[in-house]
């Protein structure tokens, strides 16, 4: 059975500069302990004193979402996920540079 639902306005998540750590947990389906460990590993730099009241830069949301998925789907632990995210980002950055350089070289 298919319903046609009316048009929905989408809100951008994380347009503000900081997001509460508890909100990050909900969005990425992460436990707060995992966010704390990811912060200790340097994957995200929160501000605030108590983890329950931490705020996390909105820009870190995509990388935290990837870390959460890798942990969930591949059964890897927090340090493994943090390492994988950093390596994936480095790989994408290098690929971007390669594509840019390839466009500069004559075919």
């Amino acid at each position, binding site marked *: *059975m*298919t*319903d*046609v*639902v*009316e*048009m*929905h*306005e*989408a*809100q*951008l*998540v*994380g*347009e503000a500069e900081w997001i509460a750590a508890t909100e990050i947990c*909900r*969005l990425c*389906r992460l436990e707060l302990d995992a966010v704390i460990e990811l912060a200790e590993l340097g994957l995200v730099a929160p501000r605030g004193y108590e983890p329950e009241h931490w705020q996390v830069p909105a*820009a870190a*949301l*995509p990388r935290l*979402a*990837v870390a959460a*998925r*890798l942990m*969930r*789907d*591949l*059964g890897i632990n927090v340090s493994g996920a943090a390492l*994988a995210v950093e390596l*994936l980002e480095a790989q994408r950055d290098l690929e*971007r540079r390669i*594509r*840019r350089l390839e*466009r*500069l070289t*004559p075919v």
Partner: protein
Amino acid sequence: MEYRDYYQILGVARMATAEDIKKSYRRLARKYHPDVSKEKDAEQKFKELQEAYEVLKDPEKRAAYDQLGSEWKSGQQFRPPPDWASGFEFSGSRSRGTSSAHVFEEEGFSDFFSSLFGGGSPFGAAGKRQRQAAGRDHHARIDIDLEEAFGGGTRTLDLKRPELKPDGTLELRSHTVRVAIPAGVTDGQLIRLAGQGEAAPGGGRAGDLYLEVHIRPHRLFQMEGRDVTLTLPVAPWEAALGATITVPTLGGAVEMHVPAGAQSGQKLRLRGRGLPGQPPGDEYVQLKVVLPPANSPAAQALYEDMRAKLGSFDPRADLQAKP
């Protein structure tokens, strides 16, 4: 609906041990995980793997699946037997592991899975969900073009979500959502559709639907956050003497001044011409000097003239050993 051979999907024999199944799933999940894999159709394959593993890792579901017999082949037309799953006793542990992530993962599963193991089937976790006051959030991925990210747009999404039937069981219901995508969305960003997640069984607040945005690679522009980079071919005289050149941007072509003495690889910035936002991104234009071919006597004469008149120019001066 079509039959799915879960053993074949996981690349294991029907007699495989739980350990073999787990190992094979881990190996293939690593290969096809959409965040890691460069394989074609990785996302689709990963969903199939998750679906197969969901059944074969659970001894009760596996036993029920095995009861269908080994004569079936993937893709064959299939209808669940009328006495499906009768005569099984379910352990209480089945629903303990059900998390919101689990519900999300089942969203992309096949009709085959839904009819045998989804909500509404004897294996569904309807009882657990009934006790919830608020609906769960749902997550999905949306692929858009850079132009849509720049100007916003409307998208129609076909999604499946579990809904509570009057008899207390759940069914997967297809629904179509039209989404107005906000201008300025970036790759990896989440957008929220309030109240479009799981309906709350007790009439409480429905969950939200989160869409993770993926922007497809663009023919001309490369993205980095809100900034975009364009490689702009220029003639040697445009770089050497300076020129005003028409340059494509996401918002339409603009005139850009290339300063005299520009070099290949040099980057120029068009402020605010990237994706909109606070602040908006920039467009970087990277120059690529393209030489005209020396394929006519006139062109050859010009190059020879350059050699004669610019003979002191040494493009390899930096390679000389310094004292």
